[in-house]
């Protein structure tokens, strides 16, 4: 951890260590992957590996994968996974794919960290930026985060979305707006919600353009890149249409996310609410919930215009709390981005509380789920209460990080207030 000398050996050691850890879990604990795949905290209806297997089976037997209403994931997963040798006979290839995706994610994070964007963006340079963690530490924190490992072992397909998002950001900070837009289109194609990240990502790309081929006009820049996203998305949809032979996949994938037709419990806040809801209010509250989720984009992008990466981080946190089918995979993505802000950690006020709340929720969640589903001695309220606590922990982290970042900016504006105690009102 100490210092700039990150040799090739250490890098390789980190990656090999992470890969070996995952392989060891896959092979030494053969029951664990299936156990984790069944956990609602890891697998949601739109990311479950089991459902992917079902879709794959239908696809390989020339039936529409969306028949039966089990598979709700993007069609392009199907050719990808049919290319691999069959999971039933050679699971190792699937394992290797997932491990590779995790390592790619770590690599993208590494690049984001080394760009120094978190400490000094084009419009703002934090006075505290010297105190930061190297890419090595940040990649290690991501790779050995239990949530990341559990997601990988549970083979949730959300890791592909994570991969696309991280690469979009990595491309953006390294001054490759085109790549960023393509990666974001992939992410949006896979999970839809990353489209919400487009505005801050555009800002980030705009700020980090290479001077030799910069587009000066922001309007022109935005319109070019939005049309790139639209184009890539259209292309992906067309390919999906060709693969599945109908447009049925649109309602079955994005429709399910928009209308929350599958009410399997998860760690989010939607399912319980919509179980309890009378049908006549359903569409209204769907609109309200989606509006709520998307309303943060504009506000944050405007308020923290000078640090678009902060906006992206905070949005990832907000999405992990409020999206319709969240899982710990989304939290692991958010937690992967948070250490980039090592320099504002001293300004955070509730780090212990946040850590304690998240840990308590992590342990009480499965216990209460067990009481509800298996022991039969609890009910749905038990688990829902814990998902509320889980949401609370994450929102505390989002708020606290936001406070720290804003305070950091504010101290640059008001140097006389450095170190003074302030109160939020």
């Amino acid at each position, binding site marked *: 951890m*100490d210092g700039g000398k*990150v040799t090739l050996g250490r890098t390789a050691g980190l990656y090999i260590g992470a890969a070996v850890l995952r392989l060891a879990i896959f092979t030494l604990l053969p029951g664990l992957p299936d156990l984790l795949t069944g956990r609602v905290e890891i697998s949601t209806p739109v990311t479950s590996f089991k459902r992917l297997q079902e879709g794959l089976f239908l696809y390989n037997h020339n039936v529409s994968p969306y028949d039966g209403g089990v598979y709700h994931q993007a069609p392009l997963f199907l050719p990808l996974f049919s290319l691999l040798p069959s999971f039933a006979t050679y699971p190792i290839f699937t394992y290797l794919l997932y491990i590779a995706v995790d390592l790619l994610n770590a690599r993208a994070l590494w690049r984001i960290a080394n760009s120094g964007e978190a400490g000094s963006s084009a419009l703002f340079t934090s006075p505290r930026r010297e105190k930061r963690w190297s890419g090595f*530490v940040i990649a290690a924190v991501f790779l050995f985060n239990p949530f990341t490992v559990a997601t990988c072992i549970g083979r949730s397909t959300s890791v592909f979305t994570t991969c696309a998002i991280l690469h979009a950001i990595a491309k953006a900070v390294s001054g490759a707006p085109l790549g960023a837009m393509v990666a974001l289109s992939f992410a949006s194609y896979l999970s839809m919600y990353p489209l919400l990240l487009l505005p801050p990502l555009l800002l980030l790309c705009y700020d980090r353009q290479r001077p030799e081929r910069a587009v000066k006009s922001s309007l022109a820049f935005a319109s070019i890149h939005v049309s790139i996203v639209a184009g890539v998305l259209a292309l992906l949809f067309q390919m999906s249409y060709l693969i599945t032979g109908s447009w049925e996949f649109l309602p079955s994938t994005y429709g399910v996310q928009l209308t929350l037709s599958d009410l399997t419990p998860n760690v989010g806040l939607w399912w319980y609410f919509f179980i309890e809801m009378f049908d006549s209010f359903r569409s209204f509250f769907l609109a309200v919930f989606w509006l709520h989720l998307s309303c943060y984009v504009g506000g944050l992008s405007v308020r923290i215009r000078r640090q678009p990466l902060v906006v992206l981080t905070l949005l990832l946190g907000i999405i992990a709390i409020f999206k319709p089918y969240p899982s710990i995979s989304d939290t692991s993505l958010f937690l992967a981005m948070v250490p980039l802000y090592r320099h504002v950690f*001293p300004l*955070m006020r509730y780090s212990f509380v946040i850590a304690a709340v998240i840990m*308590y929720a992590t342990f009480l969640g499965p*216990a209460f789920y067990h009481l509800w589903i298996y022991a039969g001695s609890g009910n749905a309220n038990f688990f829902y209460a814990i998902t509320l606590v889980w949401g609370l922990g994450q929102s505390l982290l989002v708020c606290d990080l936001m406070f720290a970042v804003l305070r950091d900016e504010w101290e640059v504006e008001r140097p006389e207030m450095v170190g003074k*105690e302030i109160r939020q009102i």
Partner: protein
Amino acid sequence: MPTPNVAGFSTLRARAYLFRLPLFTRAVLAAIGLFWILGVQVWWDVRAWGALVPDKLGFATLYRLNTFPFIHLNVFHALMNALALTPLLERFESEYGTLTSLALFFGPLTTLPAFMYVAVEKWILRADTAVMGASMWVFVLLGMEAIRTYKANPYLVVGTHHIPTWTTPIALLLCVAALVPSSSFLGHLAGLLVGYICGLGYLKFLAPPERVLRWVEGKLNLLGRLPHYVSVDQKTYGRFGVLPSSGSPPPTSVALPLYPYPVPEHQAQPSRESFCEEHLGTAAGQDAKITSALQLRRDPRILKLPPYLSLLFVVVGAVWLFLLPLDQYSRRTYISENALLPGQVHTYFGGSDQNVFRAYKHEVNALAGKSNVEINNSLEPIVKGLGLKTARQNFTYHAAGRTYAGENLYAILQAPRGDATEAIVLVAAWENVKHELNRNGIPLALTLARYFKRWSLWSKDIILLLTPDSIAGPQAWVDAYHDAHDPSRVASLPLKSGLLQGAIAIDYAQEGRFESLHIVYDGVNGQLPNLDLINSVVSIARGQMGIDVALQEMWRHSDDYKDRLRTMLRGMLKQGLGLASGPHSSFIPYHVDAVTLRPFGEGWQDEMALGRVVEGSFRSLNNLLEHLHQSFFFYLLMHRERFVSIGTYLPSAMLVAANFTIMAIALWVKSGHSEGGGQATADSKTVTPANHAAERDLSLPLGVVTLCQVLSVIPLYLFNHVPESALTPLFITFALLNTLLPPVLSHLLATKTTFTLAQYDLVQCFSLLLLGMFLSSLATLNFSLALIIGLLAAPLSFVRPFSPSPTSGLKRIACAVLLNAVSPTAVLLAGALYWRLDVRSVLRDAAVAWHVTGTYSPVVVWCVWWPAWLAGQLIVLARPAPASASARRSNGAWAGDDGKVKGE
């Protein structure tokens, strides 16, 4: 004038306010508290003694008129009333003086409303509702305040409506009557009326004349003698200003507004107005300096509080447990599920079935000592002959170097009136848990199966399950029934029926007649069957058959405190160990309610009587329309008809678990303080007081705690995987290593690293945080285990590194030895000695339970308790490096990056 709000709340001011409460108010609060404490004990019912009961009001009981305001129903009642009363009474007293308050509140202001209440209640309503509590005073005072407000500020304007301000207490009265359960509307109304009358000045003549009071005051020199006394002579000391208190002046270091109570706008008196403005002005000026909550947070006294608080939690948690057997805290059992109708049908088992039973018993006796397969070969034709479909299932378990294999035989009686979607199981194991031959149980089960076949009223299938032993056999069968088995060890079931609704196991190994019935109900991992099932069996056995029932091997139970406590503690111990206690135990984790019936004692009840109990229970289960769900799943039984439910007992374990969390938080705060304080003075430029807590060096402490957790996998693995013969040597070796490991680790930490005190604090903080977290999660799954471990680990909250001094070495060693006495190994050994068990057999049973029934108690012992204990031992043996040494080394590093990390 500023209105009170949350942001403006200042703990300093609140504290000052509390310190400056005048004498009579304090006395009243103390009396309320005292009477509440008196009400906690059970011997003398203070509430019956002092409440205002209209019918009991005679000449000799007039004291009730004055005692009732002090006595409250429960702690919340007392607390709420005290909260409401304090500001009002404080104001009244500081305005009229202590003596006047005393006279009025022990005179007319209490008796008048009380008389009004009694009059209306007794002679008009002809009822007899007892009232108690200070809320009547609250309304008296509110009434007076409201009239004063009305005089100064007559109307509230809401929209275009003018609402007279004197009506506000009426709104409050209605709210209280509507929202607060069992509040006395009439009593409050009486209080309010008297308050209005008093406020309008019609009761002035009742107040003692000032002259007399002054005389008394002067004679007795009350002002000089009593602290916080408010004189009658307001003119001397300023009517609303500084309280003319003879108590010590407030500490000058704490600047505070002298009239901390937020003054409403209606105070018309000019003197008061000006005074308040002046003082609130200063308060506003200080607001910037005193950010109240933060101020309190830094109070060093607050940091000293947590150990006491956490000790209090542990003590309350433990004492709570011993209160549970009292009548006030436990409840009588009752049947919740009305469909069960226990004991409502005639049972016909008996008569010629007795001969059938003898014939089967003859067959079974002939099979004693034969191999499992031979037995099944002989029994299967018998069962088949009854017209039941039969099947067999093989299973093999390996644990502690032994093989537990066997073959289950089971048969399904298809319900004449059912659709095979539900089933009830009748289990008889060839051997019970003590490895005695189930001599009468097997023939009885066969006879019952034959008898059940003759009836056409079954709406659920009945499964007869005959297993070779009491633990592995039923476990294998239930696992396979729910397709949760490992096919390599346990064969799948060739024949299945519907969802299991209940199971009853017969364990009748004793020869001859019996006296009473022992119900065994503990499941694996402390899970329990629905209380309704136990209640049904109790009600059938006692009510219908006249057979007495015992629980938890309490063969004689006199239903007194001692026996109840003993039953409860035995139940908790069994629950905590989480072992299977009979053939029924394996069913319970699958949410199948099950009990084992074991007859005991010498009496005149015969096998037919037990058969009738089983028949009655099956008839009740047969009635069920849905799975048992009405009654409790979490309870502690202390007598066959007395229990406490989770709501009553859970706080005990939660308090014990919370004590660890409190200490963890306290240590976290402390670890930040010790460095923060030093650095802030030395170098105020680099440290931002805004984040007062200094940055903590987390990586080493986290590493140590992680190391402890990782090490814990070793004993868990070893104790569950070595053969039985090696268990005792392993235990001895491990116990020795366990004693040596902390000193070695501690020595390494002291020599190889520069661990500061703050870092040791962090080690303890993380370890306690984890412990508290695990235990509070566990308390929801297995209350008893969480409580037992929590109490055994409680000393870990209070261990501290010894500061260097000549005697510290000795103290350290003494403390380490003491802590060794509560180590997992020592406790295991002590338990084995106390119950006269072999350590080897204890460890073997644990390993078998781990492999066969999936008992998780070993995980809790080795992976929750042991690492926490290890960390605690490291804390005791700690020799922290001086803070300056490491401050140089890792200046403000957050995770050991030494502040040297630069971009790459």
